[in-house]
């Protein structure tokens, strides 16, 4: 059997585009590991954008800020081990403006009740439920992708990351 090949911060092999007609930029082709390897911890770098919806690549390293969104978000650990801690705020809907979209950064841990935590390894996916505060913690560098909506903390730097 051929081995299954996953990427990692340490080891990834970016693919390529052979253009017959058109431009490489049309494909907005980047690599989440490469992006994470060149980013500061927990920079929410947009690597996929479909109108307002985004996929962000995050370098997990140490503790992230506390985040929250008014809608469900999802995280998949693509490299390393990451723990996600959750706090239910005392006042429901107090963390991100009602009907807002995207991830909000909180000023430290919010007032509320600890909901517990999940320990994620490579390939593990967790829900980041609407209205709940969450924090990523990683003892060693890793890579996350987050499914969310373009928000105040999303960073777009397509020119730096895409094949051209």
């Amino acid at each position, binding site marked *: *059997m051929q*081995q*299954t*090949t*996953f*990427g990692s911060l340490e080891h*990834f*092999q*970016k*693919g*390529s*585009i*052979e*253009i*017959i*007609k*058109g431009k*490489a*930029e*049309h*494909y*907005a*082709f*980047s*690599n*989440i*590991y*490469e992006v994470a390897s060149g980013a500061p911890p927990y920079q929410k770098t947009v*690597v*996929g*954008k*479909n*109108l307002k*919806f985004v*996929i962000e690549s995050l370098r997990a390293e140490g503790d992230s800020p506390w985040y929250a969104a008014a*809608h*469900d*978000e*999802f995280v998949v650990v*693509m490299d390393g081990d990451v723990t996600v801690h*959750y706090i*239910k705020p005392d006042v429901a809907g107090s963390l991100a403006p009602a009907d807002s979209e995207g991830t909000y950064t909180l000023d430290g841990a919010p007032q509320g009740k600890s*909901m*517990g935590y*999940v*320990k994620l*390894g*490579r*390939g*593990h*996916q*967790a*829900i980041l439920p609407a209205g*709940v505060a969450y924090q990523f913690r990683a003892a060693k560098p890793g*890579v996350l992708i987050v*499914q*969310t*909506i373009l928000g105040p903390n999303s960073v777009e730097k*397509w020119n730096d990351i*895409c094949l051209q």
Partner: protein
Amino acid sequence: MMDMSTLPQNVRASQPDAITGYRTFQLGHFEFSRDAYFVTVKWPAQGTQHSHQMHADAFLRAMMRDIAWGFFYGWVNFDEVLGTRNHYGKVDLYAGSFNASYKAAGVDFLEQFDTPVIMATFKAIMKDWVNEGFDPFAAPEETGTAFGAKHGDNVAAIERTRIATKRMPGLEGDSPLRDDFPVNRQFNDVAQDEPEIHAEPGFEKELHAFNLFKYLSRSDVTWNPSVTSVCKESLFCPTTEEFVLPVFHGNDRVEWFLQMSDEIVWDVADKNTGEPRARVTMRAGDIAAMPADIRHKGYSQKRSMLLVWENATPNLPKRYESGELSPYPVQF
């Protein structure tokens, strides 16, 4: 053998052929027939009849996806001539309409059907034409042949349905995980551990995590995305891919791919003419957009994990077609 009386009302089919055992089907002005090796499609153009032939295995794999995906987003090209276009409630069936040469020669033909009518016909075709031992969802190494005269059927294989997920598999009331499925032979080395969930009392139903790679390693189909997370109209639809995507998908919106493991090469062509545009090689961690003006077909020499990312926002086809939205998702 399928009894005529079991054919749905809207389906027009012949008696089984005396030699091959297969029925011939009529759908509007189209005729579909098959023999030991081939499927032949006929349609009227320029006052006469034109035809096109596909290998039976390729045809059945393509039609299976079209059915399973509910005609999907936009264009499902079975090959460079034949395909369907989804209008969500109605479906176009066409021959040569998105092929520059057929168009120029005026031998193209397109007919629109109510979705239930074309769906019933496609399902009846599959039921009659898929032989015992052939699984159109499986990789070549995992299935018997599609060829030969009619022998038996494989209803269990073709009636698998795509799993609908509301938020995330494994949440209460949501779609199930795949712990009962065996690990696929090509993913024997994929870790089967599960995340640790340490929920405080009362939050057991709110915290949730699962091993997505394990879940994918247990997929029993290829090239058949199913939803694993829903962020409003943003849908993660990962799938496991081996051999070749049986269709050349032309999307009516932008679609994204994130290659989660191994490698897929994509042939990209113009959506309207079929002319080649690019070849995109994606390896683990690569993410790329498939613009709204192309069709794409993937090749995966080893079974791989692909995250297909779709946008289910209503009315996107019109907004792209009108030019309101650029076919390219990002300008830089």
